[in-house]
């Protein structure tokens, strides 16, 4: 075992101080579902581990009339089981319930998953579809970045050295909104072979006033399917099939391995875009 120093700060301020002090030698630990396996397999060997688990206030999930907040240390289960979320934004608990198994959901964190940016993780699709703001603390203070600017490439996010993801903010969807997340599980890991999150708000005529679609598992990073959105705004459920056909427009590189070819993943993205949008519109109506 490669020895490492373990720090368990109690406040975000002291956590940030440690992150500055140790720089690249340090890894930040949240739920431990990405870092610990990497260390166990000796793929990662940080000399310092900074455990955010004891930092006060980072585990909270709130669902207000204006804003939904998810602390970086909130577990998937905390989102899945939140009392108010099914009525305020059912897409969040629906996505949480698709992650791993009960043990994983009880330990793994939303913030950790987003910061790790596995190309097949579930949360990125939903965060994109909900236009989430990612809150980040760094040496120069705090900043927020839109989900659509956050997921950059394979395991690469907009997080800079010395920065820590502190939470996620989502504007509480208005009335006449609905969302859905549809995925196929990679049969071994349960990660998304392809996953599509859709969120719509309908106008009084039942057409889409706004549409947002996030796609995961298909490209090196999760992405917003802009072409689908453009094709569906102002349209109703009858336009979904045609719009969904654009789910992989602009994708230059597809994920490919022995579980599925790029072609198949692209096909699934289009099928699931149609299913997720149809469900989202039905729920919004």
């Amino acid at each position, binding site marked *: *075992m*490669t020895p490492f120093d373990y720090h368990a700060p109690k406040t975000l301020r002291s956590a940030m101080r440690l992150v500055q002090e140790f720089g690249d030698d340090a890894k930040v630990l949240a739920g431990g579902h990405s870092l610990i396996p990497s260390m166990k397999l000796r793929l990662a060997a940080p000399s310092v581990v900074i455990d955010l688990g004891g930092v006060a206030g980072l585990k909270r999930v709130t669902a207000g009339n204006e804003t939904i907040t998810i602390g970086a240390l909130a577990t998937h289960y905390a989102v899945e089981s939140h009392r108010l979320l099914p009525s305020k934004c059912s897409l969040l608990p629906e996505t949480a319930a698709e992650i791993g198994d009960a043990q994983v959901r009880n330990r793994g964190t939303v913030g950790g998953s987003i910061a790790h940016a596995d190309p097949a993780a579930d949360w990125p699709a939903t965060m994109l579809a909900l236009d989430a703001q990612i809150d980040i603390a760094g040496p120069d203070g705090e900043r927020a970045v839109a989900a659509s600017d956050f997921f950059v490439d394979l395991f690469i996010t907009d997080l800079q050295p010395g920065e820590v993801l502190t939470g996620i903010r989502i504007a509480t969807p208005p009335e006449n909104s609905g969302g859905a997340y549809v995925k196929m599980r990679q*049969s*071994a890991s349960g990660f998304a072979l392809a996953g599509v999150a859709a969120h719509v708000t309908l106008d009084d005529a039942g057409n889409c006033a706004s549409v947002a679609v996030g796609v995961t598992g298909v490209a090196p990073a999760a992405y917003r399917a802009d072409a689908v959105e453009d094709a569906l705004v102002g349209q109703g459920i009858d336009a979904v099939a045609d719009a969904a056909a654009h789910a992989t427009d602009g994708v230059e590189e597809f994920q490919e391995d022995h579980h*599925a070819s790029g072609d*198949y993943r692209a096909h699934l993205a289009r*099928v699931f875009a149609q299913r997720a949008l149809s469900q989202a519109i039905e729920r919004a109506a």
Partner: protein
Amino acid sequence: MPVSKSVGARIKRREDPRLIQGLAHYVDDIKLPNLLHVAILRSPYAHARINGINTDAAQNLSGVKSVVTGDDVKDVIGGIPCAATDPEGFPGIKVPHHPVLATGKVRFVGEPIAAVAATDAYIAQDALDLIEVDYEPLDAINSADAAFADGAPVIHEDWDDNMAFTWSIAGGDVDAAFAEADQVVSQRIDHQRLVPNPMETRGVVAQYLPGKDQLNLWSSTQIPHLLRTQISVMLSMAENHVRVIAPEVGGGFGCKLNVYAEEALLGHMAKYLGQPVKWIEGRRENFLHTIHGRDQTGDVELAVKNDGTILGLKYTVSADVGAYYQLLTPAIPTLTGLMLCGSYTFKNVEMNLKAAFTNKMATDAYRGAGRPEATYLIERMIDVVAHDLDLDPLEVRRKNFIGKDAFPYETGTAVAYDSGDYTAALDKALKIADYEALREQQAELREEGRYLGIGFSTYVEICGMGPSAAMPAGGWESSTVRVDPTGKVTVLTGVSPHGQGQETTFAQLIADGLGVDIDDIRIIHGDTDTVQYGIGTFGSRATAVGGTAMVHAMGKVKDKVVDIAAHLLESNPQDIVIEDNKYCVRGAPESGLTLGEIAMVAHVGVELPEGTEPGLAESHFFEPPNFTYPFGTHIAVVEVDADTGEVEIQRYIAVDDCGNIINPLIVEGQVHGGIAQGVGQALYEEAIYDESGQMITGSFMDYALPKAHNFPRFELANTVTPSPVNPMGVKGVGEAGTIGSTPAIANAVIDALKPFGVRHIDLPLRPEKLWKLMQET
């Protein structure tokens, strides 16, 4: 066998409370003073020369006690044994030396090269990184076809090709059958490589007691006695100075029916170092260096009449057996050969097997061991015949079934099916399924563009292994039944379980047989210093063979108990009956004696009938006259998503006939797990080695096991056709689910895709594969 108080009752497993409370002791729970921890350096190359190994840095790491390489042990530890190498059975067989640690060359990824013993497991693991091995990589072979190709690199250089062995079986007149046929139906059938994946990986603890010259070896094994014999040979120790203990064993599925490098290596290290040593296999090690299953690919030809009558079968097959043999490697495909005729009457049959050495882990017995290959092959081919002749697959089955009056029935492969009624099981399953309604529903859904499939498997398998003459290392089994002075009963059984529930089923048999409360019975197994020699638990043999040995030993005890009771009650033995757990004269229950009262007399020794020995313990070694042949019908109903190719199992009906049933709960549990494992082969599992010989499915992130959410609620039932092979009329049920389910699912999925002109698809039936087939039409 009528249901009495215990036998036939749904009794919860007596072993479960300790298992679910964490009170059981597995190998990793064995703690000994001064214990050293062992880690194994394994080859990262599939095929490479070793030009040198430098262990200096590892030796010098603080906490490291010893580093052992192949050169250190090659003269003191014998080769890893294989029990099935008889050249009469396997003409031309090549038997390569199989060292515990590689010297000169490595032949598969994961092959052990060196072992480190250190004061903790982390230091041992760290030390592995400090061992420098000078490898010279060689081209690797990842399939039988590649092994047989012209110019292929030779894996064992004592010979000039990679042909490991051949094996053939033939019965009847195959040429005449094919001459008489209206059609020959052909199909290439592949049985992919699988990883057994027991919940508990392997593990070994070894302790040497110099004062007694005794080696104690704890191992997660299915065969403690056979392992003891082999370890004593490998380490040149007297067998009666070696004690093997199989503590709680967390599953095996056949992969622990073996002798592995680590078992001998740790035994040697404990003696050499003078300190006990422990090695617990990691999951990734398990993927690489615990035996695999299946990996046969062959061409099947069926000679058929236009009415669906099957006249004969030819199977020309290659087996990829990996780089070395493990204990039973060559024997596994022979079980395929024996069962090629399935439930059907044709007797003209021929199988010609070529086995290849490849740069992969050895194949060996994995749940079903050879029979799933036979069953999948024949059950799949029945549906191919139905497809080609435009017949209902059910009618093809019925037309060719062996009739219930034909038993005992000798097949074309010269095995004698003990008993059966295949039509009864099929009819019962069809009734549960409501078959006609399912076909109607299928037709309606197809109109809507939805693809429902109905698949059958009317399997028969070979169990209760087996007569010694047909086994590589003895097929009998042993038991001792002894009664304490206070009437508590202890059973020593040679069938050391690893999840089968013998502590419950065997106690049920004793409780009824001796008239004693089930809580007063203890079943002891797995310790070679305590239990008389036995063979072990595999091949669905524990109850049929081990249970029979116990019933015979119990009978001897009971005879003596009855004699003593008759003497004490001043009656005749033939008038003694057991009522309410008391031995009494028929019609006079008030004067009855308990087993404890009689046992006390037996041990005090003064009131015994003349000529009766004191004490109350008997042993029996049972040699079965035949195998048993369980059978049944499985029906799978699946829907294939037209847009994605995903398979949803909507219903699963299994009617299994395992003869008489001692505990329905345990039988159902075995069937549940078996179905899941067979479905794993049909839909999810595949051990893939790439062209460089790297295993790209070497973890649970990439090797898909079936999961609970993949299944509907199973609809189970039984027919009961007692076996004449043993006095209990039992057959065995450990593998039936696995054997029956793979073809049922495959046939259902292929039936679903019939509108797309699909005739056959190789396993596993992954969504992308199915989606592509649906795109092609």
